[in-house]
């Protein structure tokens, strides 16, 4: 915070704010709402939609309030005649180049332009229709994202998201003037370029130009098909966010209601991705320890450290494109979603006596990249497509509304068994640092026989919202079989958002890091800030969801993955031991080098 204060007047009301505050923020402080479109608290200021223009008394032009810092003695009018006329014109102009087919639009009722048009009562278009040639310019080839240029209002939020937050720049601005558009490399479809499918752009698109590919109808069809046994799994981050789709405050924990709602929708069995999150910790923890042994004791050059996590499919595609030489550093573990699918159609099917070919596995994910992940050819180790359909938190919200389920009045129910048991360690997979924390809780205990040396198991150093967080844990008092780790400082780093992932990978590439274990989540805040989460998602909302996740963790009776009784059972009854042959066959995968455009 700046030590300098600035005095100004907004609509004749005096206000004092820190130097560097924008006019928009100052107005907000006085509870004057100024509309915005290109503005997003996650992004650098663009100042290009011009919807937020206000009048500065004495200035020759209006000013973009989002982009203009306050200055001493400034007098601002946020609702003068001049401002209203300009704003109305701007909204009318946007509508004139926007395919305003609102009632048939996927974002109907959730569109910022529609909201503005309704606030300003824009009736019959004052201006000529300019959509013409762009009608039908829709890219539907990606399994995750649909891009419809006829709806694009060129606010560039998506471009900034892809560049600033993700460091990917799959989306860019091309051409100028009336031909200007948001494009990809040579205008190739999203499936063919470096797009990681993370959906952060989708989460920030104010209109319906970028939306998730939705599979709601396919899932209804499966549910309605009496021949099908439809299993649903829910990711950790969904339970703390679904409420936002249904009128709750951000950060409301709704696990039990969510389970009941899913049962009411007609799923045959409601299970938990947290279960396979716990399983991931066992598989990945074992892999880490094996790698450490091979490198430190056996000096095996073919085994690579640092090892990185592999739960985030956006991250996987990112490394396949940008750091293909480091693919061998990525844990071979499948993501919890895919472990779940593979076990559902084998282990679960056997146990319950269901034919796997009649099973349909649906996942509810905070993520759009999971749709792509489920489509990867490697993800068929059950002999079938392991996960059939992936829905985002938002799509689930739609289903709940379509089914007329009155969420607010539902009782809570527990997940079904088996594969429904969760520990606190599984839940925190939904927040950045959570996989690391869960892994440390288990690995440290395996190696030393004692709990991680943190109060109440809370590995605080790996928590927080800082983009890159390093933490070191000294291992002391090892069990005899792990004595090669005695005194080793386990060096870890956590990064979220792919631009931060790039920083870490760059350090690894340049040999500047000495990490052992790296956690990377493609999305800011981790899965709780995923591209498939409710809109808006912003720093404040991510904080609230994170708090809810940690609260969920603390409230669960078991908080260590290796103590999950259903995880112990799956090894006893089915897999044998961690990293066993069968475990490898079902729960591990491999990666593919990809081109860089």
């Amino acid at each position: 915070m700046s030590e300098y204060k600035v005095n100004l007047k907004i609509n004749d009301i005096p206000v004092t704010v820190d130097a560097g505050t924008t006019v928009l923020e100052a107005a907000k402080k006085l509870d004057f709402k100024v509309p915005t479109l290109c503005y997003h608290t996650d992004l650098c200021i663009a100042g290009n939609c011009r919807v937020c223009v206000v009048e500065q008394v004495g200035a020759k032009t209006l000013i973009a309030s989002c982009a203009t810092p306050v200055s001493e003695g400034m007098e601002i009018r946020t609702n003068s005649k001049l401002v209203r006329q300009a704003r109305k014109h701007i909204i009318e102009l946007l509508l004139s180049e926007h395919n305003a087919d609102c009632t048939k639009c996927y974002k109907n009722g959730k569109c910022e332009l529609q909201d503005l048009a309704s606030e300003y009562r824009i009736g019959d278009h004052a201006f000529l229709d300019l959509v013409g040639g762009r009608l039908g310019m829709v890219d539907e080839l990606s399994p995750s994202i649909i891009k419809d240029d006829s709806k694009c209002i060129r606010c560039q939020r998506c471009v900034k998201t892809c560049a600033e937050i993700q460091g990917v720049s799959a989306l860019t601005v091309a051409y100028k003037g009336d031909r200007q558009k948001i494009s990809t490399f040579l205008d190739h479809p999203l499936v063919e370029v470096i797009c990681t499918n993370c959906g952060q752009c989708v989460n920030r698109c104010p209109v319906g130009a970028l939306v998730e590919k939705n599979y709601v109808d396919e899932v209804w069809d499966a549910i309605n098909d009496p021949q099908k046994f439809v299993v649903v799994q829910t990711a950790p981050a969904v339970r703390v966010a679904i409420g936002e789709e249904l009128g709750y405050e951000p950060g409301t924990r709704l696990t039990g209601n969510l389970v009941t709602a899913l049962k009411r929708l007609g799923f045959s069995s409601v299970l938990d991705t947290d279960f396979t999150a716990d399983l991931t910790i066992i598989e990945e923890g074992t892999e880490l320890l094996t790698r450490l042994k091979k490198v430190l004791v056996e000096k095996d050059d073919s085994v690579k450290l640092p090892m990185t996590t592999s739960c985030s499919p956006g991250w996987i595609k990112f490394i396949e494109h940008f750091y293909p030489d480091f693919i061998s550093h990525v844990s071979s573990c499948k993501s919890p979603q895919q472990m779940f699918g593979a076990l559902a159609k084998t282990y679960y099917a056997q146990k319950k006596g269901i034919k796997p070919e009649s099973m349909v596995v649906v996942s509810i994910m905070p993520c759009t990249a999971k749709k792509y992940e489920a489509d990867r050819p490697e993800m068929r180790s059950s002999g079938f497509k392991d996960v059939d359909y992936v829905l985002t938190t938002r799509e689930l919200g739609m289903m709940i509304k379509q089914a007329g389920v009155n969420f607010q009045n539902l009782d809570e129910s527990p997940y079904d068994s088996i594969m429904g048991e969760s520990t606190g360690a599984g839940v925190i997979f939904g927040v950045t640092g959570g996989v690391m924390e869960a892994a440390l809780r288990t690995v440290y205990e395996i190696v030393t026989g004692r709990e991680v040396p943190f109060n109440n198991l809370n590995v605080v150093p790996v928590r927080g919202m800082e983009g890159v967080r390093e933490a070191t844990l000294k291992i002391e008092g090892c069990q005899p079989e792990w004595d090669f780790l005695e005194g080793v400082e386990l060096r870890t780093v956590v990064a979220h958002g792919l631009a931060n992932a790039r920083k870490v990978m760059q350090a690894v590439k340049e040999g500047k890091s000495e990490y052992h274990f790296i956690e990377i989540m493609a999305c800011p805040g981790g899965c709780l800030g995923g591209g498939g989460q409710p809109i808006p998602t912003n720093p404040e909302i991510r904080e609230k969801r994170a708090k809810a996740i940690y609260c969920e963790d603390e409230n669960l009776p078991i908080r260590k993955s290796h103590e999950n009784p259903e995880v112990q059972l799956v090894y006893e009854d089915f897999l044998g031991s961690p990293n066993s042959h069968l475990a490898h066959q079902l729960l591990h995968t491999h990666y593919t080098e990809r081109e860089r455009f």
Partner: protein
Amino acid sequence: MMECNKLKRVDIIFCRKGFDLFEVVEKALSRDPDDLISDMIDSGLKGRGGAGFPTGLKWKLARNEEQDEKYVVCNADEGEPGTFKDREILDQVPEKVFGGMAICAYTIGAKKGYIYLRGEYNFLIPKLTEKLEIFNRSLKQIGLDFTIRLRSGSGAYICGEESALFESMEGKRGEPRNKPPYPTVQGYLGKPTVINNVETLVYAFMISRIGPEAFKEMGTKDSRGSKVFSISGDTPRPGIYELELGMTVEDFVNEFGDGDTKAVQVGGASGGCIPRKDFPNTIIGYEGIPTGGSMMLFNSSRSMYNVLHNYLEFFTEESCGQCTPCRVGCQQLLKGIESVKKGDRPPSYLRELVKLAKTMKIAAKCGLGQSVANPFVSIIKNYKEEIIH
């Protein structure tokens, strides 16, 4: 009473006689930078690139910034339709441009300078490079740590807008930035930068030679000195002329018109159109009709619909496309006059379009979108019949 001058030719910009270039530079470098800036302010010199910002003040603002790294950039993008004077200046007296940059660098404390040269002027590169080498070397010899380099432009009109120009120099898409911060605070690479038009820099150089008094004697209170004009259109004498500021359009037309001048477009596509009835009472200068130098004369054979249509096509294509009022507004104005012409929309629709143009003037992000209203409103106002029928 309107203060105005008679049309008078001047010979400052292209004049090479009577002095040694390097002596002028050396003499300037022997003076206190603050004195040089006072002279510049005193002279009343305003930017010749179109916006007319007082040059001395610009230098002072950059000088006041406490930063190690600062830049001087010469804007030689010259994209305004009908303007070709910067090309001529760079071709004939490039050393004077360099000299102006060196003096500016000395006053603000910059070590690096760039000339951002319009892509179409690449033919000038060999000659400029050669002369720059000599100039840079000579600067070293007289002890000024300042080097000028050439940058070739990307060919878009918008890259002449100062902040888009910096973006382009930084290897990014040429899109104007939000202001503030202004270039004198955060310009090229985020560092304090003085960006001046080619002609401005030559005047700055010449003011160091002839002194502010001699400069200020010319022109009017609001428009000191002289200016180089690019004269084209229906004129028997097209070309480049240096004239004292403050004459009326009438005087100008008497000298350069073909006897049948119906309108003069002052300041290129982004300027205003002066109809015959306003010739006597319109002063060419900041108090009347400002201009970056382009003067285009139209005689009665010209259709003002075509003229406006051309300009709007130009803006529709050259808008960088980032902001709504300009990107969409330009298209609406263009399609709008087409639809009125065709009879698809009633003549009264022009009123809506004028309102829209006025919104663009105050709501667009940069000078491009803001200035579309200049030709639009002036042409619609004075030649409505030609637009409709």
